[in-house]
């Protein structure tokens, strides 16, 4: 019996291989710095680590002053959008092994919103334009019965744009938004699209009027940076094009 137990003992735990990656992080401390500065960190990482894990390692083991936002760490809350190697990505959805670790990994704050500290920007202008498109169901009393019924086809019409997590990766990847902060930005238009094409909603006219503004959908220059940046895979430029068409036709 005892020998059998001894045989069942697991072999010595395999050492999980690690590798070293260099992260170049664009730091900015508003109390000390005039301008942002690049700082590099060497971190020991596992194959399965994400950029967020690397940032955690730096914050917990090397420099506690590194400042960044993150909440759920699983791509749902939309807190940790940042520019990784020059492209807007969620730090919690970007695996280190998908990046070229022979070169430093460049991490900086998203562009076009006021930089507050290190990787944190002021999101208020972003949320202001989100609020301006009335991102809620606008509908009068239910006509007949108790429910607002919707067929699967009607639901599928706006399914893509329901996925938005408001991380601002799209809006802060838009060259028009960088130079003109008044532009509503892709995220606000995506959230307007979600209600404009909802068969239960009755406020499409109001939203189309808001987006027919000089700073509305017509500012879109179809650079497709937003579609490429979206961590939820929303076809953002397609959604903006559909809103443009709806404005031309005067109805969704």
């Amino acid at each position, binding site marked *: 019996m005892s020998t059998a137990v001894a045989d069942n003992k697991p072999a010595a735990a395999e050492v999980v291989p690690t590798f070293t990656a260099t992260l170049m992080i664009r730091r900015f401390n508003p109390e000390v710095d005039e*301008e942002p500065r690049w700082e590099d960190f060497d971190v020991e990482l596992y194959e399965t680590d994400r950029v967020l894990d690397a940032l955690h390692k730096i914050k917990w083991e090397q420099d506690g002053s590194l400042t960044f936002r993150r909440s759920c760490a699983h791509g749902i809350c939309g807190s940790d959008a940042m520019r990784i190697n020059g492209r807007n990505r969620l730090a919690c959805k970007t695996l280190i092994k998908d990046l070229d670790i022979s070169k430093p990994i460049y991490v900086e704050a998203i562009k076009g919103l006021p930089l507050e500290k290190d990787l944190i920007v002021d999101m208020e202008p972003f949320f202001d334009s989100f609020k301006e498109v009335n991102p809620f169901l606008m509908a009068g009393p239910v006509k007949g019965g108790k429910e607002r019924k919707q067929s699967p086809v009607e639901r599928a019409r706006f399914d893509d744009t329901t996925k938005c997590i408001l991380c601002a990766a799209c809006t802060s990847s838009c060259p028009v938004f960088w130079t003109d902060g008044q532009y509503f930005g892709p995220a606000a238009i995506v959230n307007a699209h979600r209600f404009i094409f909802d068969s239960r909603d009755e406020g499409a006219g109001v939203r189309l009027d808001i987006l027919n503004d000089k700073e509305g959908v017509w500012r879109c220059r*179809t650079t497709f940076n937003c579609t490429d940046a979206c961590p939820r895979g929303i*076809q953002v*430029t397609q959604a903006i094009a559909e809103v443009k068409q709806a404005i031309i036709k005067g109805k969704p």
Partner: protein
Amino acid sequence: MPEKSASNLVAEPQSPPKIRSPKRPAGTLYRGKEGMWSWVLHRITGVAIYFFLLVHILDTALVRVSPEAYNAVINTYKTPIMGLGEIALVAAIVFHALNGLRIILIDFWAFGAKHQRTMFWVVIGLWVVLLAAFIPRQLMHVFGG
């Protein structure tokens, strides 16, 4: 001594930390893909064509002032440098025209946004073909005498 220690207990008036936003918030160049670069090229060629048209309208309007002045100006254009400039002009116009059609398709064709990348490379392909047909002829005109 007691006075000194008592004074130490009183919090010294601290100047509030200076908090300011950076002057240059931009960082590295954003690494957009075909869509962004086609937009950059479209804007550059558009502005270049605008300035050409400005000069072109002015020199053409000269014919109303006096045909001699018009001829004098047009003759100054007949140099190899202007000949090469014409190649740049045709390259800019052909790209702007083809990419303009691509943008119209993105806006008005239901599958335009889906196929924008393919359409960008079609634009580049057509651009190269058209220029390959034009540039040798133009060089023959300019340098062939």
